[in-house]
């Protein structure tokens, strides 16, 4: 504080000297800081309502929300004349000297003094483009030449020397690069290894022993193809790939922060994702529905559920005094940033406070993107039809009234009738209809549209120019035009632009995500960042080929999956053919001369343990499940009553995607195995290795409970026959039969009768925890 004041004093002294012009540039920063701290907030709070672009009706022709407007003034003359208090109408107006402004109460003396001091300083005002030192750091033409912003090409298949290797077109791209590096692809994976790999990859579950046997005995020419088609048609496909999408779009069912309020029935959104993927919805439609489902149809609940996309971010709410604009700004920021990460693969959030440091995204671009959401507000609607709602309301009111009457009676009655009355109340309470099914969605409320301004340093209290919806300048507009300032369906316009054929990013980004999940690493290894600070593609032509294919096949994802998992690239073994050479030339396997082994995800580990122990409940969809957890964990919730354990045992055995995604309470097992924090978009899960994972699988509640059941399950399948139990246990957990050494070790162990411990050991071995 003191320092600033001293700087200010220095500034004033400098101004008083004759060399004003020469000194101006050094004064400017401090002057602007003064303006932003002391003058601008007053203008925004007390003047903008009538004298800005967001005014319902501009008064006196005066605009105080830009430098030009302020200097030009209105009908009565210039509002501010730098260095000249006497000629500045703003001064006499706020002094109530003639004009009395603002009319609803004089500014405080401090505020008036600040305005005067500012004018004396020369009225430094950053509210235009030329005063923004961060502006024009990049050149749009050069910007457009960056690989990810160039149009998607339709590359021909590369020429290769070994034409017998490829099975699908992607193999040409992979082999060509391997050949250039003088590397050989690895041998084909063992049939069982591929089967287990593709089962986890497409459905998130291991093949059962029966499924293994069927596949191994299927010697027909198209056995692989038929298996892949079966898996892609399985409802588990949507569960597996739905989880990937939920990671990317920061899905959670609670708002986080202190109240961690449940977003009403937001599990419906999770089901929407699963169903859409299972139904093979085109990705373009998928984008449109999530961004603008409510605009597409006000009646279709499915679409309103989809638009619940905008409700998934963390929301801060607080008791007491509210900072309405600040909170609104937080929400809009969150909703804008996710568009960049999830769809564009651009860190547009970096341009919130200043032009992007690495990519050709200006601060203005950022707020133009935000402007698409200016009218979007939370909207919770009943899932059922309105007459049902009426019935629900009247029934609820009836029961509540009766309860109230009885309670009133209770207060007046003698002891004798008390018990009976209480019993009656309890019976009535049970008749209360269950909470009405809800949809958490959004809708446009243009009356409550937030004027979107470029914000100086991203601070909502320092608005600069107002902006309207428009795509970032560096990207092609495509067939969509700039939406009119007051478009009736702004988010539809945004979605249309995202999936426009000329938009080079959306198709590339989703194609890369598919590749990333299949191979554990994207062609672009930073799936949320296709900018200069991200990582370059290892196979750009391949990425473009996939993106092209995707768009040409109406954005269908399943054909891309199919092309990938049936490729020779995907069918390679994870064992290295020429380990030493690969280690030197391609240690990270960027060229894909082998399959990269991967650890199972948290969900896969839990789901597999359930499956192995014969407990897995394969039911699809429905309200989320809360598992029994350590009491201490629940106590760490600010409102522990939020954790309502789902009592039914079969529900507790649902797949992990159906466990509640609660921001403030994550399950230790999931947390230890790198489940995302649920706070922001997660494009790439870590696969870390650390001691709590071992402790969790050795001593944790889930693994120990399920080891018990796995042991009984094995005993049930092969009673008293330890050899068969070992064989079965291995095949269930790892897909393959145990080797002789494994059999010997396990037999020796089981001789002590420790079946449960054997089952637990299986949950802990690498052959189970990794896909190879």
């Amino acid at each position, binding site marked *: *504080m*003191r320092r600033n004041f001293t700087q200010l004093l220095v500034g004033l002294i400098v101004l008083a000297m004759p060399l004003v012009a020469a000194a101006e540039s050094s004064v400017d920063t401090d002057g602007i800081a003064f303006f932003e701290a002391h003058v601008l907030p007053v203008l925004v709070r007390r003047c903008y309502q009538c004298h800005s672009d967001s005014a319902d009706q501009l008064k006196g022709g005066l605009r105080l929300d830009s430098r030009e407007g302020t200097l030009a003034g209105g009908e009565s003359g210039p509002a501010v004349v730098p260095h000249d208090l006497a000629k500045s109408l703003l001064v006499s107006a706020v002094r109530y000297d003639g004009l009395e402004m603002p009319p609803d109460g004089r500014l*405080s003396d*401090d505020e008036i003094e600040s305005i005067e001091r500012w004018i004396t300083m020369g009225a430094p005002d950053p509210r235009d483009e030329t005063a923004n030192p961060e502006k024009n750091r990049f050149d749009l033409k050069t910007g457009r030449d960056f690989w990810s912003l160039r149009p998607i090409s339709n590359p021909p298949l590369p020429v290769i020397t070994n034409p017998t290797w490829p099975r699908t077109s992607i193999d040409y791209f992979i082999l060509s690069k391997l050949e250039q590096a003088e590397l050989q692809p690895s041998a084909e994976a063992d049939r069982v290894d591929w089967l287990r790999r593709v089962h986890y990859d497409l459905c998130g579950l291991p093949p059962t022993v029966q499924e293994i046997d069927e596949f191994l005995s299927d010697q027909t020419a198209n056995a692989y193809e038929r298996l892949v088609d079966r898996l892609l048609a399985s409802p588990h496909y949507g569960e597996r790939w739905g989880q990937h999408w939920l990671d990317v779009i920061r899905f959670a069912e609670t708002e986080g*922060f*202190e109240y961690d309020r449940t977003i009403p029935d937001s599990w419906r959104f999770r089901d929407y994702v699963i169903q859409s993927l299972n139904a093979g919805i085109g990705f373009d439609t998928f984008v449109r529905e999530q961004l603008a489902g409510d605009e597409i149809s006000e009646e279709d609940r499915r679409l309103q559920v989809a638009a619940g996309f905008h409700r998934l971010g*963390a929301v*801060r709410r607080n*008791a*007491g*005094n509210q*900072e309405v604009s600040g909170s609104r700004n937080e929400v809009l920021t969150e909703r804008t940033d996710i568009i960049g990460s999830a769809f564009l693969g651009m*860190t547009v*959030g970096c341009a919130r406070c200043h032009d992007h440091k690495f990519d050709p995204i200006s601060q203005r671009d950022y707020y133009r993107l935000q402007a698409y959401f200016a009218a979007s507000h939370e909207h919770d609607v009943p899932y059922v039809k309105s007459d049902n709602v009426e019935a629900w309301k009247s029934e609820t009111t009836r029961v509540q009234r009766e309860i109230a009457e009885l309670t009133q009676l209770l207060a007046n009655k003698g002891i004798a009738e008390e018990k009976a009355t209480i019993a009656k109340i309890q019976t009535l309470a049970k008749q209360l209809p269950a909470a009405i099914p809800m949809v958490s969605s959004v809708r446009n409320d243009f009356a409550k549209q937030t004027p979107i301004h470029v914000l100086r340093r991203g601070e909502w209290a320092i608005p600069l120019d107002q902006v309207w919806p428009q795509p970032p300048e560096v990207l092609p507009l495509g067939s969509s035009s700039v939406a009119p300032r007051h478009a009736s369906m702004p988010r539809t316009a945004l979605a249309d632009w995202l999936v426009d054929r000329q938009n080079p990013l959306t198709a590339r980004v989703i194609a890369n995500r598919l590749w990333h999940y299949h191979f554990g690493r994207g062609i672009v290894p*930073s799936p*949320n*960042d296709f*900018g200069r*600070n991200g990582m370059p593609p290892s196979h750009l032509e391949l990425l473009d080929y996939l993106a092209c294919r995707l768009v040409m096949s109406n954005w269908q994802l399943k054909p891309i999956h199919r092309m990938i998992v049936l490729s020779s690239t995907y069918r390679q073994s994870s*064992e290295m053919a020429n380990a030493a050479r690969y280690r030197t030339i391609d240690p990270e396997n960027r060229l894909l001369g082998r399959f990269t*082994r991967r*650890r199972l995800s948290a969900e896969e580990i839990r789901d597999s343990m359930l499956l192995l122990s014969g407990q897995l409940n394969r039911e699809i969809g429905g309200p989320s499940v809360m598992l029994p957890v350590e009491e201490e964990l629940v*106590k*760490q*919730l*600010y409102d*522990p009553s939020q954790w309502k354990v789902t009592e039914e045992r079969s529900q507790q055995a649902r797949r992990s995607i159906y466990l509640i995604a609660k*921001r403030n*309470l994550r399950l*230790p097992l999931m947390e*230890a195995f*790198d489940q995302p924090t649920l*706070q*922001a*978009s997660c494009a790439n899960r870590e696969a*870390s*290795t*650390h*001691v*709590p994972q*071992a*402790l969790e699988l*050795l*001593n*944790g509640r889930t693994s120990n409970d399920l080891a018990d059941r796995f042991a009984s399950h094995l005993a049930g399948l092969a009673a008293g026959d330890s050899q068969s139990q070992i064989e079965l246990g291995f095949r269930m957990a*790892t897909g393959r039969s145990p*080797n002789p050494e*494994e059999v010997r*070790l*396990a037999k020796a*162990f089981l001789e*002590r009768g*420790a079946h449960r*411990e*054997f089952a637990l*050991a299986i949950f802990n*071995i*690498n*052959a189970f*925890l990794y896909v190879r």
Partner: protein
Amino acid sequence: MSLLPHQGRRRFLTESFCGLGSLAMASMMAQERLRAEPNSPLAAKASHFPARAKSVVFLFMAGGPSHLETFDPKPLLNKLDGQTRPQEFGEAKYQFVSKEARLLGSKRTFARCGQSGIEVSDLFPHVAKVIDEIAVIRSCYGDRVVHSAAQYELMSGRVMPGFPSMGAWSIYGLGSESDALPAYVVMPDPDGALEAGQPMYGNGFLPAAYQPTVFRPGDRPVLNLGLPAGISSQDRYQTIELIQQLNEASSAEEQDELAARIRTYGLAFRMQTEAPEILDLNNETEETLKLYGVGSQPTDDYGRRCLLARRLVENGVRFTVVVSGGGAAMQQWDAHKDIEENHLRMAAETDQPIAALITDLKRRGLLDTTLVLWGGEFGRSPEAQAGVGRDHHNLGFTMWMAGGGVQGGRVVGATDAIGLRAVERPCHFRDIHTTILNQLGLDQDQLTFPHLGRNERLTQVHGRVIREIL
């Protein structure tokens, strides 16, 4: 790859079946140092420059203790009691109180303590005795006036969840010094949770290896360290052994990640055997227990946790948070209703244990390398709420540091004459963070992790080391 790198696999198997006790087994495994393990994410790493502190203990006074009742006496506030705030002090935004609120004088008395003569209120008679070890920072400020956002900022430097806490950053930067204990421990108040919840302590976007271990109240504070009912340590050891053998039998392939996973099982067993002894306060002398107020009320609970914190520090735990306050506002330092009742009670629970921790660390020669930080997510308003309470207040409040290279007996910064605003040497939370990193030998600019297109840091924009107290 074997569980024991220096021994043959077979020999190890035979010996383990010959009934070696688990402790002997554990000491054998002591040869395997996690921190010497290059592939472990918690391998000890060199600091950026020589460190003054090895460990940090954060005494987190949740809910926001009043600076006006503790370390920042304001005679003028007492004079102005009952009046509205004079205009010259400027504006402030509060969560609840309005502009018309009246100033509230403090009923506490302050005395100059120790050789340094720092003023400490009568809430803290024990801490007053060790004040010469303490550097009081009277000019702290943060950006938010509501609990959750302020707690996130205090812990992670950001007003929203999802960013790594200072504890997570510390172990990301330096790794672990202990094989038997987690590197980053949080001991919450058993009374209940805080507004910002678990995410405030978390690893955010850092890998899960940097997550905190949240201790539970009671005898078995570490989740999954205790064995399930009916399982003996010997049973479980044999299971671990089977896991290792099967891993070795299944693949001839050497792969770093697989090998690293195999090693975590050895370490897990080691933790399982050694940690319970470290966590057992029964090994402490009567005198020490008494020093911390263990066994008497109202100090027993916080005393136990402070004593545990010392044992953790002794055994190489890098970052420990000991929380005072949890559950409803009145169970925290969140004195909306009655500042007197609340602070007298909260101070009585913590004063003696905190002084004991400093005394005990010092006499064991640990204070030099242990940075102790005291404070909450904000202070409290000069204005009254509900007559005798105080509202949240983020514009100026007190935190203090001791040990770990901090010069005790100093005061840095000041608030204005009514304690509204930090006016002299204001210290933002990021300055606190920067100072902590600095004492740990970490440079805030070098400690980065790429996330969503940026190299994120704890201190975001450059923080300043509070040199005045070093």
